[in-house]
């Protein structure tokens, strides 16, 4: 199939706005009208590798979606992306999304490839909307990532003084002076976390305490103030908390 025939197939199966332009050896840029929400269009490249034609985003999609807060490893998001890839027949080659074209089905392949990219880019919208279901996943992933040399326990409770688990701690960082870290999604969690810190102080525990807000601007100022009075440090968002490992390491 030559370039004109491939273009005809793309247009027939997807839409008339498709264009193709050769760029490099055995590599064609496929221009489609499909866009991210900032107006940049999806990257689709048709290239020949090991005797096969394939469509690739050359790693652009996940890079475009990563403004620091899009974490591919968050389980909910990961599941959606994997489902999209599986459902539309794409492979994720360590961040490069690609699809081998079989039996000369260029048009059908571009259709599925574009659908998958749309589905994946949709996850960015709810990333930015900070859907609560992913916040604690993202929080835990960040703690695991930042404290690889320390003991990290999630949903920690004082086994002696708090047998009922009335004062839970989202993340306990041990091996050294303990650090109690709270993921704060809303006003209630903010106040409860402040109470937990005060209770640990009542018990005479020696520790540091940190709050990581999902979005501090969404929590009432009076509640932020209560937490600030009780804790040693606040991070206004997960993005702001990227330096938490360095911060704790310097204590």
């Amino acid at each position, binding site marked *: 199939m030559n370039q004109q025939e491939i273009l005809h197939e793309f247009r027939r199966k997807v839409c008339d706005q498709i264009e193709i332009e050769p760029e490099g050896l055995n590599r064609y840029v496929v*221009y489609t009208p499909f866009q991210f929400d900032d107006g940049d269009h999806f990257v689709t*490249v048709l290239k020949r590798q090991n005797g096969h034609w394939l469509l690739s985003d050359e*790693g652009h999609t996940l890079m475009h979606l990563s403004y620091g807060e899009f974490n591919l490893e968050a389980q909910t998001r990961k599941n959606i992306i994997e489902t999209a890839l599986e459902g539309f027949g794409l492979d*994720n080659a360590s961040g490069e999304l690609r699809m081998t074209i079989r039996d000369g089905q260029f048009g059908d392949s571009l259709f599925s490839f574009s659908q998958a990219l749309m589905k994946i880019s949709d996850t960015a919208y709810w990333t930015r909307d900070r859907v609560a279901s992913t916040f604690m996943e993202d929080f835990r992933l960040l703690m695991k990532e930042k404290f690889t040399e320390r003991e990290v326990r999630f949903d920690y409770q004082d086994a002696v003084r708090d047998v009922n688990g009335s004062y839970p701690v989202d993340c306990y960082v041990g091996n050294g002076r303990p650090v109690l870290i709270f993921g704060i999604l809303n006003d209630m969690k903010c106040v409860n976390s402040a109470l937990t810190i005060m209770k640990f102080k009542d018990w005479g525990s020696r520790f540091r305490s940190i709050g990581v807000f999902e979005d*501090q601007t969404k929590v009432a100022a009076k509640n932020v103030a209560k937490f600030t009075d009780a804790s040693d440090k606040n991070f206004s*968002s997960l993005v702001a908390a990227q330096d938490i490992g360095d911060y704790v390491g310097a204590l």
Partner: protein
Amino acid sequence: MLTDSEIAALLLEPKTLPNNWKGRLKPRQKEQAQHGERSLDIPRPDGGKFRIIVRQNYLNVFDFSMILVFCAKDGKEYRLRRFNGRHPSGHTNRYEKKFGGQPVYFRNVFHIHTATERYQSVNLEIDGFAEPTASYVDLKSAQEAFIAEHNFVEDAVGYSDPGLFDAETLE
């Protein structure tokens, strides 16, 4: 929402870089991704900060991004400027397409995204407006242009950012 005059003032505001800024902006490979990323925070004297984010695609050296983010005191973040590489696809200025203005569409060229009041006013991405540029040809020259255009100055007394912030609030 930031007004155009606020955006212009933020872009022109002097920003002091630590003297190790080049090393701190060298992208690091991200897990499960074909790109590297790095960021650097620049504190503002009256609160809040600027953040520079650098991203580089390792499968296509022309595909990169240098982003200037304004982090307000209230925790809100605004992307002010984005020096993009030449990713192999197009860009549509959605506001201009709908309401008129130029450019509406271009493709496969180095381009700069800029925050605007008009995009925010109709619930479009703050930096959805972009224009082609000839002021850089790769990440290195984009970084030089980015630093020059946004009034960044290296700290004369040799301030070196260790990657911490407000550590002095603890003992």
